[in-house]
């Protein structure tokens, strides 16, 4: 499949017909999605309408924009007016968004073709899509395995070669971890670089939207399109925002630190082997890499509990609106108001969502908030300070994205803590709001994840999104195009 950059260039030049490009993507979706269940709603008619609009713009002799005719899929937690917005939950079954999210508006303004909405863990809570109320997605590399999550549908759609790029959202690792497990590039921008307007909230102080793509250049292109100040999101940055696409992609002289804390015992040896090889490639490309001895991120071991306390506390409040009065079928049998709330929420939220609401409610409760929620905020601050200190000496930090490769469906779903470990290496950058990319760095050669993709994580200081993406492009240039999943091999 062609890159988004190549498709847009050819549609703009008239070489490609946007309607044909779209029909080709629809054919791929129809052929491959039954094998991976990446989509909750393919919404093909909307894609065709988008393509018609692009064709019409071209007929008028106007430029449809930087994403002219590029099929892009959205995770089903981003609002598009008139389209479904389930967030992977029964409680939003049948709901249609009454407005369009900022990111979708930006994509449409640049001529993108919105092709369907992808599967996710319910309310983005999970790391495998197994928490989706509509069934899990499957990894295009091995359909018995998870694609990661929560943006697993988007990562699977890209890895299956259905679309060159899709949007994901990340709170604790939900873009980078599925990108790593599916062998594609996933970029989590700086918190506040991309508007959350229209993104169903999970952990508001952590949530951010970013691209998942086959190529780092495409991730940079889409990030350029969706990032920027939005007056509808008071947490978006107002400052200058250099382009991620025009920033020079060069590893020469780049100081890259590998904190020993990133090489945790929990990391699979074969994953570590690939990441070490990738670091050697960075070095060959001209980067100066150093392993930072243990102690530079002394609070990192607390990142998982801190992340779950902060995200679940915020989630317990964000999900309060789903009370059975405006969302979800009313439980008329409940005689009393609070019974009705309880019946709706117990009946329509999945077990993981209920667990997190309970955890968050507890953490904020009188008598407990000081020990849990407030303490978590303090440690969050420490983690941020520790990262800042590291960035005095390093331009980027590198390490594995995920401690392990794609695991089997059902392997971790019985044990919440085993699932929470998926965020071990991604949650710290989320807590600190840092930009971070996962780039594919080859397949594991042996062990439990043999033949499955491994992701290299590159993390930069806040606001250095363009530098992180430039490094990802430079790494891809040094290493060559990533391996394709078996589902893409049919293409030839």
């Amino acid at each position, binding site marked *: 499949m062609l890159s988004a950059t190549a498709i847009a260039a050819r549609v703009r030049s008239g070489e490609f017909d946007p309607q044909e490009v779209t029909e080709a993507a629809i054919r791929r979706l129809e052929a491959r999605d039954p094998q991976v269940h990446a989509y909750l709603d393919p919404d093909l008619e909307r894609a065709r309408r988008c393509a018609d609009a692009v064709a019409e713009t071209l007929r008028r002799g106007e430029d449809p924009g930087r994403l002219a005719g590029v099929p892009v899929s959205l995770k089903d*937690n*981003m*609002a598009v007016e008139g389209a479904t*917005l389930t*967030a992977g939950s029964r409680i*939003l079954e049948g*709901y249609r*968004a*009454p*407005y369009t*999210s900022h990111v979708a508006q930006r994509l449409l303004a640049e001529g993108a073709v919105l092709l369907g909405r992808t599967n996710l863990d319910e309310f983005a809570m999970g790391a495998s899509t197994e928490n989706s109320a509509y069934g899990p997605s499957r990894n295009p590399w091995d359909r018995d395995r998870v694609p990661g999550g929560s943006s697993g549908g988007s990562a699977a759609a890209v890895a299956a070669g259905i679309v060159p790029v899709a949007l994901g959202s990340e709170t604790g690792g939900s873009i980078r971890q599925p990108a790593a497990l599916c062998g594609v590039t996933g970029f989590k921008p700086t918190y506040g670089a991309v508007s*959350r*307007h*229209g*993104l*169903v*909230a999970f*952990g*508001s*102080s952590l949530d951010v939207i970013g691209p998942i793509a086959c190529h780092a250049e495409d991730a940079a292109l889409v990030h350029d399109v969706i990032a920027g100040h939005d*007056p*509808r*999101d*008071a*947490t978006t940055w107002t400052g200058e925002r250099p382009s991620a696409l025009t920033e020079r992609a060069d590893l020469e002289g780049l100081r890259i630190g590998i904190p020993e804390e990133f090489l945790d015992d929990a990391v699979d040896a074969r994953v570590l082997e690939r990441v070490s090889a990738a670091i050697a490639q960075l070095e060959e490309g001209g980067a100066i890499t150093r392993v930072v001895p243990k102690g530079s991120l002394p609070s990192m071991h607390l990142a998982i509990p801190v992340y779950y306390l902060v995200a679940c*506390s*915020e989630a*317990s*409040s964000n*999900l*309060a*609106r789903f*009370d059975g*009065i*405006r969302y979800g079928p009313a439980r008329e049998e409940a005689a009393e*108001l*609070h019974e009705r*709330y309880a019946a709706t929420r117990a009946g329509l939220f999945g077990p993981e969502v209920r667990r997190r609401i309970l955890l968050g*409610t507890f953490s*904020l*409760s*009188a008598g407990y*908030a000081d020990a849990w*929620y407030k303490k978590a905020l303090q440690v969050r601050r420490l983690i941020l300070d520790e990262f800042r200190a590291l960035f005095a000496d390093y331009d980027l930090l590198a390490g594995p994205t995920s401690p392990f490769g794609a695991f089997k469906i059902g392997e971790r779903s019985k044990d919440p803590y085993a699932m929470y470990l998926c965020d071990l290496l991604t949650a710290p950058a989320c807590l600190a709001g840092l930009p971070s990319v996962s780039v594919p760095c080859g397949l594991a050669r042996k062990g439990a994840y043999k033949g499955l993709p491994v992701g290299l994580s590159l993390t930069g200081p806040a606001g250095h999104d363009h530098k992180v993406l430039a490094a990802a492009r430079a790494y891809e240039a040094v290493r060559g195009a990533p391996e394709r999943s078996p589902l893409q091999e049919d293409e030839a």
Partner: protein
Amino acid sequence: MTTATRWEPVIGLEVHVHLATSSKMFCRCEARFGAPPNTLVCPVCTSQPGTLPVLNAEALRRGVLAGLALGCTIDPHTKFDRKNYFYPDLPKGYQISQFDRPLCRDGRFRYRMPDGADREATIVRAHLEEDSGKIIHPEGMDLSLVDLNRAGTPLLEIVSGPDLHSPEEAMAYLQELRRTLRAVGAGDCDMEKGGFRCDANVSLRPAGTETLGTRTETKNLNSFKFVAGALQAEIERQGAVLDGGGEVVQQTMAYDPVSGRTRPLRGKEDAHDYRYFPEPDLPEFRVDPAWVETLRASLPELPHDRHARYTGELGLSAGDADALVAERELGDYFEAAVAITGRPKETANWLLTEVLRLVNERKIALGELALGPERLAELVQLVDAGGVSVQAGRRLATEMEVRPDATAAALAEELDLVQVSDDGALRALVDEVVGQETDVVERYRGGNAGLLNALLGSVMKASRGKADPKAARELLLETLGPAGDG
């Protein structure tokens, strides 16, 4: 000792004021009362998934104005918090409010008692928050309906210290608060529209002590009458409990205006843990102290200060001053007119009688009158200079309202209202009355001095109100001599 003298009430009030903004606090919907249900709503204030709040700068500005008028410190760094609870009128399941960094705190607020005495209450804090929607229970139907027009409209919650010691003080405080907030343009404080709602914290302590007893909170008092009734009822209830050797239980009460009693609110509403935490969608923000100073400089004279100046410097009666400061427009009108006439008492008198009469008769706002302050000043000056009588002046006021083009003097001329103070014409009128009313004249001469006024009335009548009453009185006395001299 009676209950009333044995126990001293300690009252603190929490007042929710609707800030007078044209749009809601976190979205652009119109903030207006009285529209058909759910017509002033959008994805934000109905809390559709994915929506985010954006602070309305106008709500912040009016909140600061109110805080300054209450003598508060404005926190240069403030933030919003979420107050979490489930209720059908609260679409997000949480209210955006302010918890530990209120916009305004530590105020001192002077208010005036009905007898003119000055009192001071501390303002613990005043913070911004959004209002909820409204639940409607249609009569005869077993269901409740939710109207979200009000959801997200801006409120300022003003919390007084426990400084009020009688229902009278509480009422005087509330009235001064309402006048002040209206005067600075913070809110309309329209109780009927829910724009000024009060919760009352009440406890009793042995008179003469400084301890604080266990308090109760009586919620949702939405008229002055209910506040007064609820305070009285709660003070009596607690007094009876204490007199009987019992203990007051800390609880939330409701006031039933029909029975005139307070009763405990039962159920889950009473046991909230609001789980406050910082609102992640609205970053902490800075309130520029220079901007606050600009607002401070723009504050009008507050009603309390105005009242003191009117009764002091201008020598007005407390009653007239009360009336003039009741509404800022009235005081402003007065200021503009008195600046021209230089006669406070006369100007106040004409304003409070004739001008307000016109407002009532025409059912229009003061500002819509054609008889503005400059033209009232013309009238006051004309009467003052003896150009027309007071009686004729009243008619002239009415005429001036319908003839905005003509000056007071020109209208008086045109309508033949110019006062007769010319000696010859007046003497003829006096002679006419003395000649006709022989009976009254005789009784006057017989010693009934009061009848001079009756004769003066007749002269005025004969002149159709145009006679100068002072000159006419002198002429009558000159003609008839003192009473009883006969």
